[in-house]
């Protein structure tokens, strides 16, 4: 392509001239701070921050007004798996990644294995903040390793049971507190003409949250090798449980996040949803005709009287490798995710549920919610957040693991194999993916 190439070359040169004035900027702050040293930069600093939180500008503005010497420029785009993660990887390769980025917990390990994250353990402010965060969220950013902090926890998705209070009362069904009771209630709901819930066939994260609660531990890393255990004993228990409900046709299996799915809730066909704290808004918007009829109870337990919750979702603010100002970046990330004003704004703009212990007591999270009959539902989630196990670790190739598992789950839902088969298949394909990326795996 000689001709176009040549013209491209000319055009590129002119692009350089055209953009020369817009780039430049913070190169003058020639700090070469070592990765782990976390020394403050001298002089004013501009940080780039990429996220997809709606309304983040309003939060950043509060910081910028109060910190003239550390200005944050925020950029928003599609969500992580919608392209922003891929962009981060491209930018890391090209050496122009932003200073800060929004990364969900399940994607953090993939950035870690690509050496894309700055270890903030050298910042004393960061390590000192550990106790402010709910234990398990801290575990998500340290991967349970000593002397490592790869991001500041931002939000959490502790799980609970959303249920149709009116329908359960009308049909005299007790609110299930254990999974056995849940299965029994499912029979009664079916007899009353509904489904107890909708099994998420393509969004594996819900299943991951259920496995997390049951004690399933899918990945572990001993420092040199990854171990993959997608079908461990506890996960098998969860898979067989839901397979049983599917086999008896006690749960529906409409694809999640579709209007069909919303409609099942809106028309009282589905009665409960075991979901994360942010699910509260999904129901409010998806099932507006059922306002006032819902309530929230703790997740059903595997052993009677147990107090264990799962988690679905949540993310961290990470500092990318190559940032010239890790100290300032960490300082901003800490403020963003611990400051009461910031957390209140994040909750108001984007319904983020804070990862800090104090965050659970924000005034907005103490009020009753009309849609849920005036119940102070966030109290249930605050309690759940403290009951999530801290040692659940995500793998470094979750995207492909999810794809493989959800293919199998879709099959299982339509009677093709079982959920457990799907997990075993995902196990094999995950190990293969890790190997193909030269990530050491223990077999």
């Amino acid at each position, binding site marked *: *392509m*000689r*001709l*176009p190439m040549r*013209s*491209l070359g000319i*055009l*590129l040169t002119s*692009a*350089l001239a*055209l*953009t020369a004035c*817009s*780039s430049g900027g913070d190169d003058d702050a020639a700090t070469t701070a070592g990765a782990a040293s976390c020394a403050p930069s001298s002089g004013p600093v501009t940080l780039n921050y*990429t996220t*997809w939180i*709606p309304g983040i500008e309003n939060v950043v503005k509060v910081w910028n007004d109060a910190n003239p010497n550390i200005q944050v420029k925020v*950029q*928003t*785009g*599609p*969500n992580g*798996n*919608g*392209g922003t993660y*891929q*962009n981060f990887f*491209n*930018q890391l*390769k*090209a*050496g*122009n990644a*932003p200073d800060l980025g929004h990364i969900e917990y399940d994607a953090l390990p993939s950035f870690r294995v690509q050496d894309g994250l700055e270890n903030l353990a050298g910042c004393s402010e960061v390590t000192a903040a550990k106790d402010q965060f709910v234990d398990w969220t801290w575990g998500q950013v340290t991967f349970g390793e000593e002397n490592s902090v790869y991001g500041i926890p931002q939000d959490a998705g502790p799980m609970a049971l959303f249920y149709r209070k009116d329908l359960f009362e009308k049909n005299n069904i007790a609110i299930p507190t254990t999974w056995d009771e849940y299965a029994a209630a499912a029979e009664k709901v079916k007899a009353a003409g509904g489904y107890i819930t909708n099994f998420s066939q393509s969004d594996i994260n819900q299943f991951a949250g259920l496995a997390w609660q049951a004690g399933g531990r899918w990945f572990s890393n001993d420092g040199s090798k990854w171990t993959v255990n997608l079908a461990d004993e506890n996960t098998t228990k969860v898979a067989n449980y839901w397979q049983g409900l599917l086999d008896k046709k006690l749960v529906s299996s409409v694809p999640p*996040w579709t*209007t069909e799915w*919303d*409609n099942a809730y*809106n*028309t009282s066909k589905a009665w409960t949803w075991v979901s994360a704290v*942010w699910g509260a*808004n*999904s129901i409010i*918007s*998806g099932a*507006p*005709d059922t306002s006032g009829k819902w309530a929230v109870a703790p997740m059903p337990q595997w052993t009677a009287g147990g107090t264990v919750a799962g988690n679905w979702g949540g993310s961290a603010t990470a500092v990318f490798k190559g940032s010239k100002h890790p100290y300032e970046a960490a300082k901003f990330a800490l403020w963003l995710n611990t400051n009461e004003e910031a957390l209140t704004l994040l909750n108001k703009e*984007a*319904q983020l549920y804070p990862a800090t212990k104090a965050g659970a007591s924000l005034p907005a999270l103490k009020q009753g919610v009309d849609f849920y009959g005036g119940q102070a539902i966030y109290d249930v989630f605050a309690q759940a957040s403290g009951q999530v196990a801290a040692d659940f670790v995500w793998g470094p190739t979750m995207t492909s693991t999810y794809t493989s598992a959800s293919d199998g789950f879709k099959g299982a839902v339509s009677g093709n194999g079982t959920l457990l088969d799907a997990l075993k298949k995902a196990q094999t394909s995950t190990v293969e993916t890790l190997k193909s990326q030269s990530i050491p795996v223990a077999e």
Partner: protein
Amino acid sequence: MISPLKRSLPMLVMGACTLYFLVPIWWLLVAASKSRSQFSNTDPLWFADFSLFDNLNELFSYRDGVFLRWMLNSVVYTGGAALLGTVLAAMCGYALAKYRFPGREAIFNVVLSGVLVPATALALPLFLIFSQFNATNTFWSVFLPSLVNPFGVYLARIYATASVPDELLEAARLDGSGEVRTFFTVSTKLMFPALVTIFLFHFVAVWNNFLLPLIMLGNERLFPVTLGLYSWNTQVNQIPELRMLVLTGALVSIIPLVIAFLLLQRFWRNGLGSGAIK
């Protein structure tokens, strides 16, 4: 005398095709006219309470009217790139058709093979090149690569060979017209239908090139409308209010394409036909 059956059969097939192509647009129009609560529980192909104007109002005011900015960006990216790209392709194709110089066929063949390289495959290399120049996340990082259009060069060459007689060029030279002047005053007029075709092809190609802005741009104010709507759509799970904005935005965003096609379609037919008889 054609039997009524023979006459109605093609009409039937065409009617079915028209229906097939129009139903999605109809669905979009109906969906965009509904409120969010009615969207999921009313007939998807017929109107409920008409709230299109509320949706439009919300769309244009959401986040300081960023949607209008996206529309403007799209028009500049695609309109600008298509216009400039057409001129470049026309000049290039014309030169390949009308001038004899060593390596002409080789250049043409290389350009032709460029048609086979999908734009998506070039996005990442382009990103890395622009990174070298510190020029990612700028208007130019999307605009400049969009100017290149090998298929346009191919079409321009074919059409220039067919429609610009050498005698005419010689006459122009005898009258003292320079080559550049001849090209702009004589040849482009003869090639006009082909230029419209190239323009439309190019316009659609740039409009649809989604991956390049996705990879290049981080600043929301620079997004074209396709990327902007996409980024909203990825957040529908968390912010359900966005669903109606995405639908209404999609409806508004096809308007420029419809206008471009309606205005230019008579040239369009003309241009396609002349390529066919060559």
